[in-house]
């Protein structure tokens, strides 16, 4: 049998990629990173009227009841909670970074969304048994890459869903969002670590015997030069001690890509969704 049809193959590849990336970190890469990123991340996700979350909501709408109960793991600043709340769905958000929660609350208030719950905790600590089959949709966007045990975490999504599960990842290659040549300019020959959930999560799910569907969505973001520079510096500070000259390189690169003091980006995301085995009949 082709090894690529086996769960162990994809599990192993995922773990290995995770280990490679972790071994490269020299700066704040975990919770401190997200605390520091909260504000700029929020700006990026709110851009173009929550285009990112809205596109995901549009993909899933035909498959869900009108008043769906949703779990959003690693919800960040409400990227998806806001458009889903506006669609009339009730979202429970799992988010450990207080700064992200602060952004989320402000964004929800501004959008007039009151009916939602925040679980202020890391996902690994959430007791899935007590939420068994509780949601119509258990979703996680651009967050699964942080977990070493992807398979376990996918199965935990399945535990809490009575119908659909969904993982959103980038769709612009392994280094989705950071393939503008800056990596080699700053890091030299150090190989750039991958982090996209796509297509690895799809392949793992297939090997697990699920029948995942995928929609590739295009979305736009727009943010100030300052906010983009902030993001880029934090990203590279995970992997290296920034010097005045590398900082300068980052600034120049961002400014070169800006117009009217704004950085516009057209991005691709993959929306992978499948029936929880609990749902009985798969499609």
């Amino acid at each position, binding site marked *: 049998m082709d090894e*690529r049809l086996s769960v162990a193959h994809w599990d192993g590849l995922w773990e290995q990629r995770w280990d490679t990336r972790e071994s490269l970190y020299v700066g704040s890469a975990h919770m401190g990173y997200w605390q520091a990123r909260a504000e700029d991340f929020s700006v990026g996700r709110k851009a173009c009227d929550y285009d990112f979350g809205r596109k995901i909501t549009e993909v899933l709408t035909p498959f869900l009841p009108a008043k769906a109960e949703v779990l959003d793991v690693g919800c960040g600043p409400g990227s998806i909670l806001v458009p889903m709340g506006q669609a009339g769905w009730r979202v429970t958000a799992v988010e450990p970074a207080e700064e992200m929660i602060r952004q989320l609350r402000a964004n929800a208030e501004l959008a007039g969304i009151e009916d939602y719950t925040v679980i202020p905790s890391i996902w690994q600590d959430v007791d899935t048994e007590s939420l068994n089959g509780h949601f119509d949709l258990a979703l996680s966007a651009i967050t699964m890459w942080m977990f070493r045990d992807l398979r376990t975490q996918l199965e935990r999504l399945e535990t809490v869903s009575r119908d659909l599960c969904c993982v959103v990842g980038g769709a612009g290659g392994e280094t989705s969002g950071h393939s503008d040549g800056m990596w080699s300019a700053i890091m030299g020959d150090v190989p750039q670590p991958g982090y996209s959930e796509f297509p690895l999560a799809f392949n793992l799910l297939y090997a697990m015997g699920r029948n995942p569907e995928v929609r590739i969505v295009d979305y736009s973001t727009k943010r100030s030069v300052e906010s983009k520079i902030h993001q880029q510096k934090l990203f590279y500070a995970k992997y290296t001690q920034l010097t005045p000259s590398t900082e300068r390189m980052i600034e120049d690169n961002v400014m070169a890509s800006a117009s009217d003091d704004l950085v516009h980006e057209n991005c691709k995301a993959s929306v992978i969704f499948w029936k929880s085995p609990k749902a009985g009949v798969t499609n």
Partner: protein
Amino acid sequence: MRHTYFRKTSKGVEMNEADAVSWQDRWRIQMEDMAARSDTQYWNRRAEDYNNFIVSSSFEYGERMAEILHSNTMLGADSNVLEIASGVGAVTLPLARRAARVTAVEPAQSMADLLEENASAANINNVSPEVTDFATFAAQTQDNAFDLAFLCHAAWQFPDAAWLIEEMSRLSSGHCCLADTMGQGDPENLAMQKKLGINAPEVDRPFYLYNVLNELGRPASLSNVSYMMRRSEDSARSMWTNLVSKYRTVSEQDTEMINEHIATRSTNGVYEVPATMTMMWWKA
């Protein structure tokens, strides 16, 4: 331990395994054999029973696929569609009902004849059959000549999947879509294969094609279409008998088993098996 390295491609840096055989090569290895066994002559022989399956199934999967293409705005009343390997029209006719024109490239004359018959029986007159193979057709056709390029249930004829995908992308200015059978049918179908001692589950071609697309920097949307495969009992008998004869001479005992199986799965002379087709589409 497996080593991971990162390879620079035109699309950026991609992860790969040190011993990696590319998806394109994996596809080629698996399909070359299959392509050799189902050449144009083979399909000329199979045309009749295949047609029975499509017509008895009331073009069900074709309808469902055309509907998905339509509701995802890849197909509309103005669309100029290219269909590669159209066969007897399983998807051609449903596409034609929703499009301005369908150019149907089909190298097997008897398939093309049945397509024309089926089209005229359905009062469809916007299908243009081209009785030629796709490579010949593509070589004579300019870029962006179509709005949608589509191929269903024939990708194994193209061991060079990258060539197929890039040619489809070149010929379409809008979207491209590949579709193929996914899964091994239901447990009952699998049990029957086991009973006959046939241990050759087909590869899930969509899984490989999907990864080839990604390898080419063309991440695709993917949707599963479930439908009921219907055919006459005779057509089902010929299907199972053909399958066994690929491996050994069909014995009396085999025939008995096949007849018994067909009887339990048929109603009013029609044999039914649930099946799935997977569609994968991308922007050209």
